[in-house]
């Protein structure tokens, strides 16, 4: 009986709007406290890396050692110049930019053909592209290694970019987006007698800015973070990418020639490009993810 009355009271309060007021008060400290602990846990490892990258030795013995040191400039200079990490970063950037631009271009072409052309077999072609989702790098890196040797591409930027250019995911996302562009716009273009090139440059691309930025960030993060394939196919230091270059730094730590502070400086440098892009472009990135899941 009491419960029923309380229930009725809650309903009435809700109608009065008291409920809203209470809910805001209930934005309670407990929830914020738990969130803070979890956020600290997620950020802690990188905060340690950042702090250590500014120290002389990279040995941490107590909480006080987690404050920033005064060797930041010296450490980063040493990693970038003396250990040629600048070269690795540059190679990673070249690899990622070529993959993003190439993938974006040929995926826009493919998605345009699939959505805007009335031709037979295009559903079959779309399936043929989607089926490549079953063939990620880990499934085919052994034969791909042999193929690269046969082509003479080992150790070149071709080897770490061209195999990544075809992308089922990107074609899929672009197709979904193209299908959401209102038909009235497309029909107007047709009535105006717009050709395919003009249609792409002046209708399709301007209407797809957000998605194009979003998939570019997804592709950049994916390309920049590649580890296994460059590890296998690049074996000269001059052509190595940052992800694998880190391993070279770490090898020197175990050889006793290098302190952990330099490895952490290299790690911080390697994290920065994808992290900054993600933070700056988080809005189009999140919107594009919501297309991907459909």
């Amino acid at each position, binding site marked *: 009986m009491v419960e029923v009355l309380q229930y009725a009271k809650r309903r009435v309060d809700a109608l009065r709007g008291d409920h809203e007021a209470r*809910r805001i008060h209930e934005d309670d400290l407990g929830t914020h406290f738990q969130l803070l602990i979890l956020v600290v846990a997620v950020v802690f490892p990188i905060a340690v890396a950042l702090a250590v990258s500014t120290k002389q030795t990279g040995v941490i013995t107590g909480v006080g050692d987690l404050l920033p040191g005064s060797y930041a400039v010296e450490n980063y200079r040493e990693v970038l110049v003396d250990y040629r990490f600048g070269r690795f970063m540059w190679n990673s950037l070249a690899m990622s930019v070529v993959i993003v631009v190439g993938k974006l271009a040929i995926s826009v072409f493919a998605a345009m*053909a*699939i959505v805007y052309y009335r*031709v037979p077999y295009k559903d079959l072609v779309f399936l043929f592209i989607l089926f490549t989702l079953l063939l990620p790098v*880990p*499934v085919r890196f*052994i034969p791909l290694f042999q193929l690269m040797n046969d082509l003479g591409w080992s150790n070149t930027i071709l080897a770490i970019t061209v195999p990544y250019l075809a992308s089922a995911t990107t*074609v899929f996302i672009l197709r979904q987006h193209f299908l959401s562009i209102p038909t009235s716009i497309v029909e107007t273009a047709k009535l105006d007698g717009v050709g395919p090139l003009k249609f792409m440059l002046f209708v399709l691309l301007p209407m797809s800015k957000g998605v194009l930025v979003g998939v570019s960030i997804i592709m950049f993060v994916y390309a920049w973070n590649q580890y296994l394939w460059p590890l296998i196919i690049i074996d000269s230091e001059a052509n190595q990418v940052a992800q694998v270059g880190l391993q070279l730094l770490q090898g020197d730590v175990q050889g006793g020639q290098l302190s*952990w502070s330099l490895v*952490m400086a290299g790690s911080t440098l390697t994290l920065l490009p994808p992290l900054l892009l993600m933070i700056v472009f988080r809005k189009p990135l999140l919107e594009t993810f919501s297309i991907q899941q459909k």
Partner: protein
Amino acid sequence: MSTREIFDSRIESALLLLPTLLVSVVFLYYPTALAFRTSFFDSSFGRAEVFVGLENYVGLVTSSGYHRSIVISVVFAAVVVVGVVVVSLYLTFLIHEVDTGQGLYLISVIWPYALPPAVGALVFLFITHPTLGVLTGPIESLGVEVDWFNNGSQAFVVVALAAIWKQIGYNVIFMIAAMNNVPDTLTETAELDGVGGLRRLVSVYVPIMTPTIFFLVVINTIYAFFGTFAFVDLLTSGGPSNATNILIFNLYQEGFSFFNFGVASAKSVVLFVVVGVLMFVQFRITDRYSYYGG
């Protein structure tokens, strides 16, 4: 027929599709076919290939080392998937519950999406290092001796934790979108009925978010099987005593430590089947839930 199909030149559409199809055939389909073929051969550097029929597969079926690798991969995937989904779900719920600081909380937990696995691995190596690690002291004060360079189960835990940490960002991105889609009226009704806190998460939000959670379970499983290579390579190299030797690392060793391309190709085919089954499961699930607006 859709009014979007405003062009009908077969040559143009073929040209638009050509780059994606060409790369797909040469660098995705052809190497996969090559893997199937080589899996029936004895193949390595500097000696002629010899056809051996099913010998490589028979070798896998009877190899206790490979069986162990399969078991380790499955257990590892289960631990990583459950860990990632539970932590991400709870984090998402907490973020969903607060009104102030939501944007800041969100970015501080989704950033690991951009984290390169190689960086994550080295940072984890540093903070949990048996002699140097920041976390080693606190953990040992709890009565556990940190010895994961020699202790297999400890090594397994370290690799799993690092892998979970990296994948939280990606999961929260999708979960927050799904949770924000739960109608406010449902949340209000639940609150009025006194269904608060965790119970609201488990009995109201989770059922509605099922399509997203299934999608993430499949994505996380693929990640645990293949995307965690850098963690294993840099943290443990599959050791100690193969305790962290998951299938992808086992395959890498077969190819590039032992140079048995025939056996490695047979292992690639096994992984192809794993991807195939996972994709099929995802396809069926997406299909089943598409009626519910998933």
